[in-house]
Each structure stands twice: as structure tokens, then as C-alpha cells.
């Protein structure tokens, strides 16, 4: 009984860690790429090496990758405590919603009714597909 409660608690803590670190990673990566500009156009004008150098020298990109790494290890931690059928869909669908909120607050994206609907439909769809 207590073992089950601890396993559940650890599983949900891991889900929270995945959602927070993954959303932070996505927001940081998005900010980095908006700072750098359209990669396709830049690659044609300045070459692939120049584009690669710009990306790996951007501090938001490096922080974003660090957050993504944290999300990956949090997921592994969660999987060691609870089933993939809970951790996978819960983390994926909550990340869609958290990203919409984070993008509105930190990236000032125009998250209109269409985008909210899309995020919620995809989040619900991911849960149903994992059942």
C-alpha cells in the first residue's frame, strides 16, 4: 500500500519535472531560433558551417538543450517508478498545454482560440491513443 503510494508520488513528480523542463527547453529553443532567423534563407546565403556556428554559440540554445536533457532523464526516472502507459501520455499531453501557456507568457505568441483548440485536441488525442 505504502509502496504503491510512493511509486505513484514519484511517478507524478517525474511527470511534473518532464513537463516543466521540456516546456522550458522548447521555449528556450524557440527563442534561440527566432533570434538567429530563418535557417533555410541563412544557409543559402552564408553556408551550413556558419549556421551551425551561430546555433551552438547561442546561449538560449545551449540552455534549451540542457533543459531537454533534464526532461529526458526525468522521463527515465519516472519510467523506473511507474508504467509507461501513465508516464508517456500524461507527460506528452500536459506538455502541449504547458507549452501553449509558456509560449504566450514568455514568447508573447498570439495563442488564439484556434491554437488553444489545437493544443487541447492533440493533448486529448494523445491520451486516447495511449489507452
Amino acid at each position, binding site marked *: 500500500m505504502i509502496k504503491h503510494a510512493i511509486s505513484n508520488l514519484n511517478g507524478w513528480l517525474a511527470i511534473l519535472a518532464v513537463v516543466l523542463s521540456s516546456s522550458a527547453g522548447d521555449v528556450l529553443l524557440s527563442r534561440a531560433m527566432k533570434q538567429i532567423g530563418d535557417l533555410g534563407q541563412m544557409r543559402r546565403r552564408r553556408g551550413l558551417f556558419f549556421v551551425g556556428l551561430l546555433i551552438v554559440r547561442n546561449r538560449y*540554445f545551449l540552455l534549451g538543450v540542457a533543459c531537454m536533457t533534464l526532461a529526458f532523464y526525468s522521463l527515465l526516472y519516472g519510467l523506473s517508478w511507474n508504467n509507461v502507459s501513465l508516464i508517456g501520455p500524461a507527460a506528452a499531453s500536459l506538455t502541449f498545454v504547458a507549452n501553449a501557456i509558456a509560449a504566450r507568457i514568455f514568447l508573447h505568441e498570439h495563442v488564439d482560440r484556434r491554437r488553444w483548440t489545437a493544443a487541447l*485536441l*492533440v493533448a486529448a*488525442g*494523445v491520451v486516447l*491513443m495511449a489507452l
Partner: protein
Amino acid sequence: MNLRKYLVLAGVSIFAPVGDSLLSYGMKQVGNISLRHPSQLLLAIANPWVGIGIVLLLGFFASYVTALSWADLTYVLPASSLGYVLLALIARFALHEQVSLTRWLGIALVSSGVGFVTSGPEVTRRPPRRRNQAGNVATEPS
């Protein structure tokens, strides 16, 4: 949106699920890895399926950051979630697995979410504020 941009979004959708599947297939061949022997993790890359899986996941990351360079995060994430649908279709028609009614309903919801978001603009338009690192006018948030 032009053909190049749709191809980048298709890359995000396809590379991630196929790469994950190949990694999973390869790791089942490699077998369980003990925490006492972490060097086995490095040897796992020698498995061709794991190797191809990693190359595809690198392709996913390259497509993902490329898409984020010209589209909003709240556009790219739902628009590239067709990968979930692709995985279920591969399971049904290539691997001949049974796909339940709830899963088909999930596929329908994800597809409608993708349809919703891709029918709108891909980026939040705002006046240019300053020049970016490469000297181009950036659309960086304030």
C-alpha cells in the same frame, strides 16, 4: 507557407516516431544494460538499428529547430504531432496490430488538432525590433 516549410514539418513528424521505433527495436536486440556496466551503452551504438535510429533523431532535431526558426512554438508542436498518427497507422497496416476504437478516436482528435492549427498563420507578426546575430531583421519577442 511553401513546399519547403511543409517538408520541414513532415521531417519533424516522420523522423521522431521512426527514429524512436528503430531505437526500441535495436535496444531489444542489444538486451538489458546494467548500471554496473555503463560502457555497454556506448557499445549499443554499434547495433545498426540503434545507429540508424540516432541518425534519424538527429534529423528530427535539425528539422525541429529549422521549423522553430520561422514558425511559432504553438504552431510547430501541434502541426508536427501527425507522427503519433503515423505510428498507429504503421502498427495497423505494416505490423498488422489491432488498433482499438479509442485509439482511432485519438487519431481523429490529433488529426483535427493538426488541421485546426495549420489552417492559421504560422507566426505571430510583430514589428521588427532589432537586427539578429547574422545581421537580419529578427522577429524576436520583446
